[in-house]
């Protein structure tokens, strides 16, 4: 009796409920992925799904493990920023599906500054933030003053920015290939500083991107929950009319929110491309998935900046684990995209899960009271 009494309030806590719901989403996503693997080929399915989950642990040597752990971290930083971008806008009642396009704009700006203008890394970083913020504020402006649904305008801007960046960066690409030059070969000053992290993880692309993005994450958390601006923004999100009635500038807040959200996504792009981990392929015909996965990470993390750190890591963990599936020759690497998208879909049911849990707790409490 004593234990059940102390357990009940724990289950009632919103944070615990969110965590449980997210874990359930993950489990269901993995289950669907596993079933898909079994349908494709039942023989290797179990080992394939464990490979996805193990990611770098599949390597036996420690230095290799570290290197691939580092790679996972490198891709986690930009995803975390995109997740922050989505959740920041969502707190203000905006669905920033444009994180993908703002990410593209950031990538274009920082790579152009690094490769064509040969600027140092912090200038490139600022350019990326500015580019993302400008794109975001266009959507914000259209929403605030022209009543354009931000989802639609963001999607249009995603495509526009993709084509623009492809054109912009075709001037700094390798003449023989479709990728842009590596930063290391053109302008080492544009590389993010490593501060010794590269040798620690045995991976030359590990930079301050990871600690930097966690700092930004904490900053956003403080901004949202501890400052007046954050309070105003959240109030606007909860009830636009009430916030306006209280004298908050709703239009200004919408534009500011989208600008910050866009800046975050642009920052994320700089984290990846200034680490020189990946080059931009100027022929790409679709917007990189990073921004869309940001939606997954934001919701899986319970729309909490700190939760987003863990969910971002998890998503990149299974994505990089899934990439190894291509070598099996039976399964495709998109299996992890499948798992991620099922997880986002399941996140839609979080509200229902919480309601069911609370109803169950209520009925149990009632029974307990009677006996």
């Amino acid at each position, binding site marked *: 009796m004593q234990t059940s009494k102390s357990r009940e309030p724990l289950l009632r806590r919103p944070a615990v409920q969110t965590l449980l719901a997210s874990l359930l989403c993950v489990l269901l996503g993995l289950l669907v992925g596993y079933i898909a693997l079994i349908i494709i080929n039942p023989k290797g399915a179990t080992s394939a799904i464990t490979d996805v989950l193990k990611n770098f642990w599949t390597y036996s040597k420690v230095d290799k493990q570290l290197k691939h752990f580092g790679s996972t971290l490198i891709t986690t930083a930009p995803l975390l920023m995109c997740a922050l971008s989505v959740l920041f806008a969502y707190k203000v009642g905006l669905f920033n599906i444009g994180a993908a396009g703002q990410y593209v704009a950031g990538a274009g700006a920082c790579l152009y500054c690094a490769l064509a203008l040969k600027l140092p890394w912090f200038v490139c970083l600022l350019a990326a933030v500015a580019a993302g913020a400008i794109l975001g504020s266009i959507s914000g402006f259209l929403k605030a003053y*022209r009543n*354009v649904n931000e989802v*639609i305008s963001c999607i249009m801007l995603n*495509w*526009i920015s993709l084509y623009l960046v492809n054109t912009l960066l075709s001037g700094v690409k390798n003449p023989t290939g479709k990728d842009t030059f590596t930063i290391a070969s053109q302008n080492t000053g544009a590389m993010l500083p490593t501060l010794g992290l590269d040798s620690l993880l045995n991976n030359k692309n590990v930079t301050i991107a990871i600690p930097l993005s966690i700092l930004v994450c904490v900053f956003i958390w403080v901004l949202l929950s501890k400052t007046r601006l954050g309070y105003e923004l959240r109030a606007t999100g909860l009830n636009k009319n009430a916030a306006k009635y209280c004298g908050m500038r709703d239009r200004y807040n919408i534009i500011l929110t989208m600008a910050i959200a866009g800046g975050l996504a642009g920052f994320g792009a700089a984290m990846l491309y200034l680490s020189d981990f990946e080059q931009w392929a100027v022929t790409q015909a679709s917007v990189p998935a990073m921004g869309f996965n940001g939606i997954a990470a934001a919701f899986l993390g319970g729309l909490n900046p700190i939760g987003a750190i863990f969910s971002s890591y998890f998503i990149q963990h299974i994505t990089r684990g899934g990439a190894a599936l291509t070598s099996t020759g039976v399964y495709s690497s998109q299996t992890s995209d499948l798992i991620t*998208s099922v997880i*986002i879909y399941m996140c839609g049911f979080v*509200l229902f899960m919480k309601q069911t849990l609370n109803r169950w707790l209520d009925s149990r409490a009632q029974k307990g009271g009677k006996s």
Partner: protein
Amino acid sequence: MLLLIQYTLIFTSVLMLVALGGCFSEHSGVINIGLEGIMVFGALGGALVMRYLPAGTPAFVMVVVSIIAAMCVGILYSLLLAVAAINFKADQTLVGTAMNLLGTAAATVIVKAINTAADSSNPSSEIMYIEAKKSFIISEGTEFSWFMILALILLIASYIILYKTKFGLRLMACGEHPQAADSVGINVYRMRYAGVMISGLLGGLGGLVYITAGVSAWKFENGVAGFGFLALAVMIFGSWKPQRIALAALLFGLFRSLSNVYTGFDLLKNLNLPSTVYNMLPYIISLVVLAFLSKNSAAPKAEGIPYDKGSR
């Protein structure tokens, strides 16, 4: 010029069908951002039928069966949205986004699995249907297809269903004021299911039309390149009315086809604009158009709000 007309008509058909789908869903009160994913799945259903029906199949059977397949798969896939949005009151934008991601990812996994099972050295996500596609063409050598006529019929049907039948008027009532509709005995849940499933039917068909537009093979990794969203813009531009949607689709279709055929016009070629400009045009135009038209939005009042019988 003929080429431009052909492409314009094809893209118009696609955009119109999908936008009409969105129109039905939104009139019932459910925002359908997931049209893109529905298109991918409809296209997949149609493409698989085209590939697996034996080569000697009569053209008529080929056309009918693949259209039915695309529609059915589209309806099935749209149920994902219906269940989540109507029964579980999920965030419709979130679920729609998930469906778009799921559409491309799942279709790629499925096609790759089929391709590798057939030939282990071929891990591509492409389905070819060169012979089958010819059944859809009205006159050999052009791109005029039966889809255009079908799209026109469905446009007229949509208009009649929405405005001239009991069902359509009830459907629209559920999107404007579900509580009022419920109070006079209309089953809001069932109406919303109908709206979403019709959007699945039209979206799936639109996907099939899109992947047969000028090409005879489709790489499912690429999804449908934002056409579902373009269709949503068409729907808003058409202020949720079938007849205006048709005109909006024509305009967007024209600009979209310019990027395919602009090199055929001396005037446009002499402008020497990079091809990306033409790729961007439909999106830029829809943004500008939306900026001017959204002020007095004609959107159904209750769209996006889950219906709860108990709420007041």
